């Protein structure tokens, strides 16, 4: 964990939210509510546009972090994969321990959002059986075009040695 400290930023991302991926994701995770695939249904339910399913923010980079959108980079670990590698640099297996989302307002198709991420927690403990567990938490803030926060998300990974 030598190279990670609380407060270290990860690479910032700018991400577009598009209808095709949102509808497909919704279908795969069993989000059968028509609001995820129909603007008409979304408007009838009181949304301004098609809302994403609750866990879509976890995958939105994969679909929407198009290279031409990306801000000038300030360095930092590129993403969760690099955080996991840093956590297990002395060996061990990394598993996803916990994920949490806090929503201020719905994230909508058609938006382009900015995602900032930092290492928000690092800890370590040894179980009674002698197994060492190292924890890292990454906190993400997703902001809209006016820099207002839409949601925050935390990923906790555990390295078991």
């Amino acid at each position, binding site marked *: 964990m030598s190279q990670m400290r609380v407060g270290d930023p990860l690479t910032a991302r700018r991400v577009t939210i598009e209808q095709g991926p949102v509808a497909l994701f919704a279908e795969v*995770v069993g989000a059968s509510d028509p609001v995820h695939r129909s603007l008409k249904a979304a408007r009838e339910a009181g949304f301004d546009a098609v809302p994403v*399913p*609750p866990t879509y923010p976890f*995958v939105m980079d994969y679909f929407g972090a198009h290279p031409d959108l990306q801000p000038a980079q300030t360095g930092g670990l590129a993403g969760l994969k690099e955080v996991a590698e840093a956590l297990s640099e002395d060996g061990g297996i990394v598993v996803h*321990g916990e994920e949490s*989302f806090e929503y201020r307002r719905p994230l909508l198709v058609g938006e382009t959002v900015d995602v900032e991420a930092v290492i928000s927690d690092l800890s370590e403990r040894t179980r009674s059986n002698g197994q060492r567990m190292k924890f890292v938490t990454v906190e993400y803030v997703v902001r809209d075009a006016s820099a207002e926060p839409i949601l925050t998300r935390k990923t906790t990974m555990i390295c078991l040695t």
Partner: protein
Amino acid sequence: MLAFDEMTTGRIFVGPPRQLTRVDFVRYAGVSGDYNPLHVDEVSAQATGQPSVFGHGMYSAGLLASAVADLVGLAHLRRYTVRFTRLARPDEEVFTELTIGDVRESEGTVTVAVDCALKSGDSEIVKGSAVAEYSR
């Protein structure tokens, strides 16, 4: 979505059973970009000593989130947290179990806590909690 007056503490909602398949894990790989062979390639998974492929934690979390959003209404969901308890295996029959927790009213806002789990039999695959808010 559940009506307000039906949200009483302790009430339990069990979702329909769903049999997990290897195809489900491949489809989640396709919508997450996580093609880790442990999730999608039986030969590679077994070569590491696993009995089979296993599901992405966030696939289980996504299935559970869909049930939570259907119950509380997507627009009302304020928090959703999950812990990954154990691996999900192909052919397991899973279901969601949602339990209404504290219901509190303060200054015109009703806050409802929900405990949630994706289960197979008595065993929890992911376990979590959610908070929904409503204006009176």
